[in-house]
């Protein structure tokens, strides 16, 4: 790994320590079973999993966030802020020098506290300031807005849960929305199945851990689903309008507020967005310069559930983000056995930042 990348990682780490963070480390070898479950499909497919005959499968850490959350939740301290710098490992399909399988990440994470928008603004401003000399373009989004919109639908809890689960898979989310809105018909085989007096007639033996009771529960769910009235066109239009937002942050906020006027469930999320922009402005980040995209962050990490952001090299859309991060309260709940704390953070690709600063070709 090049020396400029190491120096950059050190420089970033120092900047995060100067913001009051405590330096933490994470083992390169992480327990695979526990962690693989927490990452989205993308990282799961890319993790290097190695076998240890005595301890079972281990994984080379694909990021620091999950190990740091785990450490924080076990220590049970609040509030806390952490910084780290070290290599992360992700398999790459192509031998692309811009996407190495091992690269240095430096990150900053804030846990706890009583002002979540202030913490979000601080993480964003700290990372931006540390990279202020690079020509970067910021993109932001808010998964919390989409979650609030789904929560506000007139749909059953089952439908809402299915939509929430597929927020990060746009194709399936769209397919579900179309089906719930009555725009696509259910598969004919399903209608035949639900009409059968004994759906199990002629079926094979009961094998495996998924029990007959679970199959019956799903059949009940399918019957309830078939009887449920469709979403209204206005409800679908609201979600479409949120996903279509792509504007400077102040204009995006106006759009969100206008949508919230007709959809009260959005109001708290709209106010969070307003408070975040105000907090950013107090830290010297002009909201006009911040782009807000309604669908930003939907195809990246599954654990983000609120504010999301990325800093991208200007004029180099082919490169991965130089920095990215967001809020991940839900992850703390999973790792805290039910106890959750507000958590937000971000990480920089140190090698990429160094190369943008010093050149060095591809």
């Amino acid at each position, binding site marked *: 790994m090049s020396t400029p990348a190491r120096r950059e990682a050190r420089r970033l780490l120092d900047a995060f320590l100067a913001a009051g963070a405590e330096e933490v480390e994470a083992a390169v070898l992480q327990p695979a079973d526990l962690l693989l479950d927490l990452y989205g499909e993308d990282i*799961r497919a890319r993790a290097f999993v190695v076998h240890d005959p005595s301890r079972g499968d281990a994984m080379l850490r694909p990021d620091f966030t999950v190990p740091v959350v785990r450490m924080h939740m076990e220590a049970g301290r609040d509030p806390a802020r952490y910084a780290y710098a070290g290599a992360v490992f992700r398999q790459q399909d192509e031998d692309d020098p811009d996407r190495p399988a091992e690269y240095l990440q430096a990150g900053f994470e804030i846990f706890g506290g009583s002002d979540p928008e202030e913490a979000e603004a601080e993480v964003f401003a700290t990372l931006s300031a540390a990279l202020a000399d690079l020509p970067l373009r910021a993109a932001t989004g808010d998964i919390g807005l989409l979650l609030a919109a789904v929560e506000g639908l007139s749909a059953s809890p089952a439908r809402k849960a299915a939509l929430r689960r597929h927020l990060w898979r746009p194709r399936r989310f769209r397919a579900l929305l179309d089906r719930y809105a009555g725009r696509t018909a259910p598969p004919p085989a399903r209608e035949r199945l639900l009409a059968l007096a004994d759906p199990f007639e002629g079926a094979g*033996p009961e094998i495996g851990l998924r029990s007959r009771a679970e199959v019956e529960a799903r059949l009940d769910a399918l019957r309830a689903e078939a009887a449920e009235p469709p979403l209204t066109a206005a409800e679908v239009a609201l979600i479409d309008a949120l996903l279509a937002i792509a504007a400077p942050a102040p204009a995006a906020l106006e759009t969100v507020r206008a949508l919230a006027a007709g959809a009260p469930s959005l109001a708290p999320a709209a106010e969070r967005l307003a408070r975040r922009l105000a907090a950013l402005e107090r830290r010297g980040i002009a909201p006009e310069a911040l782009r807000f995209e309604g669908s930003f962050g939907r195809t990246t990490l599954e654990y983000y559930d609120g504010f999301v952001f990325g800093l991208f090299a200007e004029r180099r859309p082919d490169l991965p983000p130089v920095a990215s991060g967001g809020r991940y309260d839900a992850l703390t709940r999973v790792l805290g056995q039910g106890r959750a704390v507000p958590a937000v953070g971000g990480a920089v690709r140190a090698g990429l930042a160094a190369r943008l600063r010093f050149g060095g070709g591809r």
Partner: protein
Amino acid sequence: MTLRLGLPSKGRLMEDAFAWFAARGIPLSRDGGERTYAARAGWEGLEPVLLSAGEIPRDLASGRLHLGVTGSDLVRERVAGWERRLEALAPMGFGAADVVIAVPDFWVDVRTLDDLDAACAAFRQAHGRRLRIATKYHRLVRDFLRAHGVADYLLVDSQGATEGTVKAEAAEAVADITSTGETLRANGLRVLDDGVIHRSEATLFRSRTAGWGRAERAALDRLLERVGGQTIPAAGG
């Protein structure tokens, strides 16, 4: 100058590959009987190398072989971005089998990938862990399920007797290769309606990364005239 041709070293696949070349006027024979892994070709400029079918994709990708006969499933599974490194020259008409996703037949509620995804979600909720799919085709299955938006599953490795893993409670579903589906049915499993991941067949592949000088190209052109595959463009490699 010789073209190194990787051939499956045993079983039906080897016999069919030898027969395929023989039928096209290229006799191949084993050197010294059943137990050796050396072979020779009655065709100038061709050096057959007997290898496990599973290793041929890797040796083609690295350029150690110019040509190789193996299953198209194995190439897709073992070589990331295979089309950049390999070229399929000729499907050979044998070794046909499908890589499929199959679930217990008594899961009457699960006929499609859409159903499987819903079952995965409910299973995770009920059992506190992901529904396991046993397979040796990790890349193929993961890419396929990701493309179709199926989530909350876990691939568990199974290098043999995969159909038995559900009954053994080592997995809840399987992704395996099958030619008739007979073994799956015998084990109480059923292929999903949209569960065919890849239709595999023995195929003659060319390595794009091997050394392709003028002599190698000429030898390949002569060979392709015999076997009726497509010829490679003059430039590039």
